[in-house]
């Protein structure tokens, strides 16, 4: 469904106003394939290129080289109108549910905004949008009465549910989950992970799951790519990577992971 072919991204630091400085390779020749209906995890430490990868998939950045294919189409060749249509098909859930919801918008406005932006694709009138918003809230485990409240009235876990409802508003085929639970407590994290799992089964979604937390990735994903310094050092089915890692970096990462197993 999503395919990255030798994607690289360089950022150049400017020395002077017009003098280009040395360039920094944030991603180098990253290739990966995400199949329809699966959860694909990308795990790495800070500075590894995880964020650059999400920005490139969302086409907020253009790759310096390489191709990105979504449902077989090269993103770079799409016309602006086709690109706009494609954007409705890939949506994102952000890390921080405190920063990613506009405090001055009601839940209704937050959830219907993407429908307004993709009005032509969805063809929903005002009433249709409101009905869909209520449906979406029910889908993520909130009630219709929450529609007219504001983000500050919700807990972190509830806000993340609102973020998920917003991401689902345009009927996407794929969700990009950028550290969706790292700002949450474990008991709430468990609820959100279970919700994501249920939604995936119900709606047949494809997930690209970005995280630094290996245990979350192991729980939530089918396949995983370990990324370090802009390169994919190892990728494969989750059980293989976690049970029999072959790359020294992956092994180090797994060894550093705080386990609940008590020694001695």
């Amino acid at each position, binding site marked *: 469904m999503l395919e990255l072919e030798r994607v690289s991204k360089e950022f150049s630091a400017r020395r002077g106003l017009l003098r280009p400085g040395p360039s920094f390779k944030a991603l180098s020749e990253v290739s990966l394939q995400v199949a329809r209906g699966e959860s694909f995890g990308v795990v790495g430490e800070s500075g590894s290129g995880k964020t650059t990868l999400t920005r490139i998939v969302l086409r907020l950045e253009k790759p310096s080289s390489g191709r990105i294919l979504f449902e077989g189409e090269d993103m770079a060749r799409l016309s602006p109108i086709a690109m706009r249509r494609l954007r409705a098909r890939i949506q994102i859930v952000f890390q921080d549910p405190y920063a990613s919801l506009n405090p001055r918008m009601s839940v209704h406005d937050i959830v219907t905004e993407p429908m307004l932006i993709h009005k032509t694709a969805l063809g929903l009138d005002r009433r249709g949008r409101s009905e869909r918003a209520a449906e979406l809230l029910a889908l993520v485990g909130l009630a219709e009465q929450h529609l007219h409240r504001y983000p500050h009235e919700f807990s972190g876990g509830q806000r993340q549910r609102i973020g998920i409802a917003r991401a689902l508003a345009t009927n996407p085929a794929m969700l990009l989950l950028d550290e969706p639970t790292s700002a949450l407590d474990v008991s709430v*994290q468990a*609820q959100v992970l279970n919700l994501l799992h249920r939604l995936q089964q119900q709606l047949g979604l494809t997930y690209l799951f970005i995280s630094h937390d290996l245990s979350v990735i192991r729980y939530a994903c089918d396949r995983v790519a370990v990324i370090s310094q802009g390169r994919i050092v190892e990728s494969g089915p989750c059980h293989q990577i976690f049970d029999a890692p072959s790359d020294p970096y992956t092994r180090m990462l797994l060894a550093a992971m705080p386990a609940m197993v008590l020694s001695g």
Partner: protein
Amino acid sequence: MTEPPLLEIRDLNLSMTSFDGAAHVLAGVNLSVRRNEIWGLVGETGCGKSLTGLSVSRLVPSPPARYLGGEIRFDGRDLLGLEEVQMRSLRGRRIGMIFQDPTTNLNPVFRVGEQLVDVALNAGLHSPEILGVVPGASGRERRVAARKLAIEMLGKVGIADPTTRIDAYPHEFSGGMRQRVLIAMALIGRPDLLIADEPTTALDVSVQRQILALITAMVQEYCMGVILITHNLGVVAQACSHVAVMYAGHVVESGTVRAVLGRPTHPYTRALMAAIPAPGVARGGLVGLAGQVPNLIAPPPGCRFAPRCPIAADACLAGPPPAIEMGQGHVVACLKADQARAA
């Protein structure tokens, strides 16, 4: 075993005044820490773990905070009765602190050396033997000694080439290195008690492991007592000797790490552990905790966990739960501890 604990918190009650009324945020916290013990204080957001830590160093602004009762005995003295001046002679000297975010806790406009020297000089003011200078030494001699000590400490926390690095600015260090600098700063006064509030939360796992190993090594070297505040039970299993689990201002379960994590008994501890994505848990198999943390302005009567507890009975709502000793210092504040354990 006969040695009195270094720190003893007894029945600590703290209330915070807010616009909506007074919130009873710490409701009878008990904790005692001996030398060489690393106590993990775990719980979820808002359970009072940080406030407990901050109370020991008396850094909770008051107002809005008000201590309703209880005592914090450090080396026999009740810290709640001390004047600010007396507290200042303890902070940075006998009580060291490390906070979560290494990027905001160093002043960006001063070299790390100057910041370390400041702390060393202040500690030296209260205990001249730390600097190792003769009494009545000149300011310059003390400064030279403080710098020497700062270099020594930087080396100890694993900063390569400390003699040059001491003149670097904070932005020249990575996150993990800054946390090392802060640990050096906390240890420069040779504290007896170290309070580390989420010291590794902002760091990558590989760096986290190094920092935890450093803290454990330093505890052995200096015979300190440590309170390590964290929300991560994995960190507790990795670094602590003892653990106290907090929920809504209560310590619900405490004891050695082996006892508490090996045989978790309080329903909240069990729920917390069931929520961790452990190896072998099938997708969809995690158990989240239903319901919400109680409103601390009008907390439920009796056990604060009762409204979310799977085995709560009417008696749980009637009065605060008794602290039940399960053996070897493993204490569970639950009326139905026996049943919980059997379940």
